[in-house]
């Protein structure tokens, strides 16, 4: 705290910083800048004193003398923390999440009241509550009523425990754990057997709940819930003000003998009187955990309670796990595990209490990333000679992972899924990587960004709950021992069985297979993160047919297993999933096929009981011809390959005056990011029609030609243009003689080439053009020629050098991360469908944002499934703070750190000089901000952000049952709120053979059989260009370039104003009482005039 205060002075010295938005700040500027005015308005007297001190400090700073404190603080930060910024962000966040004193007092008082209340309750027999309809446990008691008999007596003790008691609680709507120690008189010493304790505990809590409901003063919504989603762990939940208070009832310490619970003992006896030897390790854990809570609590409080930095680190780590949702669901990775592990690290002296919390979290991640709970196990118990104490190895016989608590009997990781553990482990390593990456604000990514499930996993399998099929699984697959161990609650067993089959079946196709939270039901959902290297393998290769393992393979894969001979000569058992030349879209879904097969083969779960989430949104980048799977990659690939042929032919032309050095593509298709890559269906047209045609093609693909350098180019743009045209003529001649199969047609400014039924439109670019465009005579001496970047020169530079470089970089990126192209295409399609076309939001901006996320692994390592990539894009847009952050797309780290720092500094200093969305790339050639200088505007940015937030909400709501309806909702624009709707003549609306054609109905509209339009003709685009050029000051036009049949228009606010007459402001205006007002009526008429023949109707929605 004092650190922040001591800087009040520095704010004063930077009056620019004061934002006039809030009234507090206005006060600041009113009262003058010379005196010391702290930012906060409400301040207690105590702070005022500080103010005076600060004032002195400010003066000291001015006199350039550094106080010792300051020097120390600066040095300390450099040494102990990542950076100043990081440290301050940590401080701010901790301040935000930590509980206020007022809140702590409230809880203490609340507990005291409850204690009093419970002590006053009369003793009575509670057994009758078993038959009450409120009784929350759904399973039948194993014992008769006599054994379940319980009397109410006031609890032995009642107190807060867990995070609240050691002050590591986070968040405002936080759960306060309260530990109620049941009185000895209510329990019997054999209650640990056959779930008796669970029922008794439940009865006890239910009784309290009913009594509290009568009273109603302690809080509302009193209910019994399952702790960690485990029905064997009922807790009493009470909402009191901002807190959820969870009361857990436990037996008194040492009431049950702990050695009754060592893993191999049996505590569930199905047959009366018989001494069973079947171990029940999981049941034992459920009871044991309650018995040792107090003990563990004491240990944690003793060893961590006084170490402020360790507690802060725990808070940060809890935020980190919470943001990744590791702490939700059935027995999740929670704060208790973090705390125990940190305690272990303290003990083995990997961390010290004197370390800064930054150092502690860093070491935690480092150590946890290398931990091997599933192989070695750790014990927090210092006593080695307890009666019957099991060895670590004994635990491994029954549990996947081992972390033994202070009592020496309880393995706190008993129920944690090993898959979740592995996932957390890998994310820890990721976190370290992110800390080391200078060019992103890692703090924001690590702690401030929520990473929900739908952006974590490539694919998710949801197995719907169905009692019969769940029962079936148990019957078919579970061993009789397991059935006893998981008696009355088989969900964890099913999860274990399904996971193990899936793990084996998917093998190295997946990096992670994680069971997800399932708050609502017993629905089992499993998230998959695919391994990009193996996930697309079409064959599952098994053991050689004559080896003994072959039998197991055949059994596992059933009828799918076949004996195949491979190219390397081996003959093995194998499973083939799809043909080798299947499209990428299909290959990405092999994992789906495998899962569906395994679930039905092993568990008899039929496909309509399975929801598979992963390819729902692929529909927007599919085409309507190849019904099922073909996504844009295949077509892009065809276009790129044939472009390479064209390029080769052009470069081989010999007798040109200047050699053709390179032919480069600039179209989105060369970056695999074209939403509607053309079909190869172009042909030679007819010149005699009204609209003369050389070629007919769905789309022309743009590229550039670079010639070998020469000093002989003229110094005049007009002459240059003519020389280039002469070149086109020359190229046409040579091509038609040397490669007669490739058809060439030229125009004055480009050359069209028809190859493999695709049309490429190429232009010659020359650096001299750019130089000529920059030329400008100096105004100072009228002699020196200056070279200044201007709009025209930038346009040429983008076309000639920047875009080709970006295209090849992104092309490379796609080969690294094969989901780049389809993801970017999906994102673009989404923007289009919201009527935001490339004029309002340039296509390249979308691509660059996707590239940024992929290069930086934001929010986590790249997904293979474009749908997940698309969700991440939406998430990024929805949460991106464009005011303070910039996007750096640094291919191959071409931009140096110093350069980036420099840009960043400028950006922070003069935010207003930069576009609303600032993107720096290593392809800019120092023309920073080139991509977003014109668009998107602030308004469009906000709109897109809003749309993204809304889409995210829709996805979130229906995530586990995503279907085409959701896709349609997200890809359908709202036409509400516009001022004008312009209906277009369908004849001129460009046809695209993609599904979801115009979003009015979901059926695909077939491409007209008439054939392709003349190459490069698009009247709607012409119209939009004209109206946008003419009326940009007055209105914004919205259009979906993929089959949109309407253009929407919105007036800019300026049209409502009148202004003083001036000759420069007269455009588009009329006189109203001697003042100028925008002539709205005439502009609407103009739109009709400009769009003659194209527009059918203009509908005015809002009269001005």
């Amino acid at each position: 705290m004092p650190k922040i205060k001591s800087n009040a002075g520095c704010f004063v010295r930077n009056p620019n910083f004061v934002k006039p938005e809030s009234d507090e700040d206005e006060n600041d500027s009113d009262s003058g800048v010379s005196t010391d005015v702290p930012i906060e308005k409400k301040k207690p007297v105590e702070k005022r004193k500080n103010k005076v001190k600060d004032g002195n400090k400010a003066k000291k700073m001015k006199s350039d003398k550094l106080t010792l404190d300051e020097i120390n603080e600066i040095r300390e930060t450099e040494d102990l923390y990542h950076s100043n910024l990081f440290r301050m962000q940590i401080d701010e966040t901790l301040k935000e999440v930590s509980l206020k004193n007022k809140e702590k007092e409230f809880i203490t008082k609340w507990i005291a009241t409850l204690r009093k209340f419970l002590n006053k309750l009369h003793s009575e027999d509670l057994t009758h509550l078993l038959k009450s309809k409120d009784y929350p446990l759904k399973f039948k008691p194993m014992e008769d009523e006599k054994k379940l008999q319980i009397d109410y007596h006031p609890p032995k003790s009642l107190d807060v425990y867990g995070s609240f008691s050691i002050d590591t609680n986070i968040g405002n709507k936080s759960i306060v754990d309260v530990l109620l120690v049941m009185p000895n008189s209510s329990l019997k010493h054999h209650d640990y057997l056959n779930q008796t304790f669970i029922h008794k505990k439940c009865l006890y809590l239910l009784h309290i709940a009913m009594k509290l409901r009568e009273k109603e003063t302690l809080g509302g919504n009193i209910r019994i819930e399952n702790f960690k989603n485990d029905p064997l762990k009922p807790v009493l939940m009470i909402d009191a003000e901002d807190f959820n208070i969870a009361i857990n009832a436990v037996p008194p310490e040492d009431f049950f003998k702990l050695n009754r619970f060592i893993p191999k003992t049996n505590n569930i006896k199905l047959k009366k009187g018989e001494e069973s030897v079947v171990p029940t390790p999981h049941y034992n854990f459920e009871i044991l955990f309650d018995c040792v809570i107090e003990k563990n609590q004491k240990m944690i409080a003793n060893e961590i309670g006084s170490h402020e930095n360790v507690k802060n680190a725990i808070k940060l780590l809890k935020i980190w796990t919470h943001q990744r949702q590791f702490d939700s669901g059935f027995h999740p990775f929670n704060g208790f595990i973090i705390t125990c592990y940190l305690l272990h690290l303290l003990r083995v002296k990997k961390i010290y209490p004197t370390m800064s919390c930054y150092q502690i979290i860093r070491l935690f991640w480092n150590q946890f990333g290398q931990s091997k709970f599933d192989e070695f196990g750790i014990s927090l118990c210092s006593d080695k000679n307890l009666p019957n104490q099991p060895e670590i190895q004994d635990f491994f016989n029954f549990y996947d992972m081992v972390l033994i608590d202070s009592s020496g009997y309880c393995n706190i990781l008993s129920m944690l899924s090993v898959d979740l553990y592995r996932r957390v482990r890998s994310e820890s390593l990721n976190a370290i990587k992110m800390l080391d990456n200078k060019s992103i604000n890692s703090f924001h990514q690590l702690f401030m960004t929520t990473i929900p499930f739908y952006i974590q996993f490539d694919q998710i399998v949801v197995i719907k709950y169905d009692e019969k099929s769940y029962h079936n699984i148990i019957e078919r697959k579970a061993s009789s021992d397991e059935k006893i161990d998981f008696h009355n609650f088989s969900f964890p067993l099913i999860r274990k069985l399904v996971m193990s089959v899936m793990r084996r079946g998917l093998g190295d196709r997946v990096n992670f297979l994680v069971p997800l939270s399932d708050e609502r039901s017993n629905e089992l959902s499993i998230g998959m993160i695919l391994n990009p290297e193996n996930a697309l393998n079409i064959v599952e290769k098994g053991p050689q047919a004559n080896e003994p393992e072959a039998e197991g393979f055949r059994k596992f894969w059933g009828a799918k297993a076949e004996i195949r001979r491979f190219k390397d000569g081996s003959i093995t058992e194998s499973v083939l999933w799809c043909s080798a030349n299947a499209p990428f879209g299909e290959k990405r879904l092999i994992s789906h096929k495998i899962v569906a097969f395994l679930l039905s083969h092993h568990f008899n779960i039929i496909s309509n009981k399975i929801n598979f989430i992963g390819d729902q949104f692929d529909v927007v980048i599919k085409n309507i011809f190849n019904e099922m799977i073909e996504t844009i990659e295949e077509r892009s690939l065809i276009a790129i390959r044939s472009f390479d042929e064209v390029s080769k032919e052009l470069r081989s032309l010999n007798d040109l005056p200047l050699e053709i050095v390179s032919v480069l593509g600039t179209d989105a298709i060369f970056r695999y990011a074209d939403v509607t890559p053309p079909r190869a269906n172009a042909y030679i047209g007819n010149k005699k029609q009204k609209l003369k045609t050389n070629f007919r093609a769905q789309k022309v693909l743009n590229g550039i030609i670079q010639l070998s350098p020469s000093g002989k180019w003229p110094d005049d743009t007009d002459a240059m243009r003519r020389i280039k045209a002469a070149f086109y003529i020359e190229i046409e001649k040579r091509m038609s003689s040397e490669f007669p199969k490739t058809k060439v047609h030229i125009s004055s400014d480009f050359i069209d080439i028809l190859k493999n039924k695709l049309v490429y439109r190429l232009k010659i670019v020359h650096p001299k053009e750019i130089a000529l465009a920059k030329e400008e005579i100096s105004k100072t001496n009228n002699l020196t020629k200056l070279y200044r970047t201007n709009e025209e020169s930038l346009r040429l530079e983008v076309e000639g050098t920047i875009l080709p470089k970006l295209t090849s970089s992104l092309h490379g990126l796609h080969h690294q991360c094969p989901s780049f192209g389809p993801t970017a295409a999906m994102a673009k399609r989404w923007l289009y469908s919201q009527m935001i076309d490339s004029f309002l939001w340039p296509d390249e901006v979308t691509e660059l944002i996707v590239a940024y996320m992929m290069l930086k692994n934001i929010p986590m390592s790249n997904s293979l499934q474009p749908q997940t990539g698309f969700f991440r894009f939406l998430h990024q847009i929805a949460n991106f703070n464009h005011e303070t952050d910039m996007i750096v797309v640094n291919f191959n780290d071409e931009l140096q750190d110093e350069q980036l720092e420099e840009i960043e500094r400028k950006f922070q200093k003069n935010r207003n000089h930069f576009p609303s969305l600032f993107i720096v790339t290593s392809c800019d050639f120092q023309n920073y901000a080139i991509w977003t200088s014109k668009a998107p505007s602030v308004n469009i940015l906000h709109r897109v952000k809003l749309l993204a937030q809304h889409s995210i909400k829709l996805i979130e709501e229906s995530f586990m049952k995503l279907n085409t309806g959701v896709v349609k909702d997200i890809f359908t624009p709202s036409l509400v709120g516009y001022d004008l709707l312009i209906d277009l003549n369908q004849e001129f609306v460009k046809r695209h053979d993609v599904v979801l054609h115009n979003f009015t109905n979901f059926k695909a509209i077939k491409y007209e059989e008439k054939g392709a339009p003349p190459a490069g003709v698009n009247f709607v685009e012409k119209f939009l260009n004209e109206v946008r050029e003419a009326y940009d000051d007055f209105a914004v036009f919205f259009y979906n370039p993929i089959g949109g049949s309407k253009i929407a228009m919105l007036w800019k606010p300026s049209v409502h104003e009148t202004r003083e007459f001036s000759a420069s402001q007269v455009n588009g205006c009329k006189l109203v009482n001697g003042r100028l007002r925008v002539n709205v009526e005439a502009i609407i008429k103009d739109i009709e005039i400009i769009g003659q023949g194209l527009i059918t109707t203009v509908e005015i929605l809002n009269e001005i």
Partner: protein
Amino acid sequence: MAIVEKLGEYNVLPLLYDESADESTSHSLFLKKYRSDKKSMDKPVGKTLTVLNIPPYVTEVNLERIFSTVGPVEKVTLIDSYSNEHHLKYQVPSEFFNQRQPFKFKIGFIVFKKSDSVEIALRLESLPPLNNDKDVLLTGVEKWTEEYNKQIVDTSEMQTEIDFYMKHYDKVKNSETIEDEGDDEWITVGKKGQNAGFKQKESVISKLEQKIQNQKKRAKSLSNFYTFELRDSKKQQLLELRKKLEDDKLKIMSIKQKRKFKPY
């Protein structure tokens, strides 16, 4: 007939699209006498009429027809803003290489043959409509079709035109260079012609200046020679550190103001 609105020296007249068009949906043209201190052959003062707020689709030809009702028109020039005026350069008329006109509201200069025409024009109460039976204003699909068709060129015709142009261009260029090269020893850099003036990039100039500066400095100073200098430089380093700290604090404050520290 509408009342002619006046505003200062401007006459405001509606420009109807065609006979049937309504005045309320028409743009207003602002007419005034052309004034300038400079004498110009292009726009002789007294014979020239300035017209403001010409809709984007109106061409020189349209305006010439409209104003020829007042008196014979010598020439019509359209620019999209005053600041772009000096960029206009003479274009060789061409079948294939026409510069694209910006599609914006424009300022027009109508040069009449007779000087009294300007006065008459300013007394007009209405203008003839843009479209009449004889000439049709080309917009929309018709216009774009024509534009598209123009792209499809006859190669040999284009080649001839290019050859002709380049011949002329080379001739002009050659004559300049011959003029300049008075002596074999050097090339005079003149103020006229294609290669007028020095070509120096701004960046080059600033680099040169920097270099001179640096040379001066280097000759004089010896850094960190005295202990006090050493101390000062250390202090300077710390100050920079502190400055960075302060910058960071500002950043934090700005993030904080947006309430970005609530993780959920």
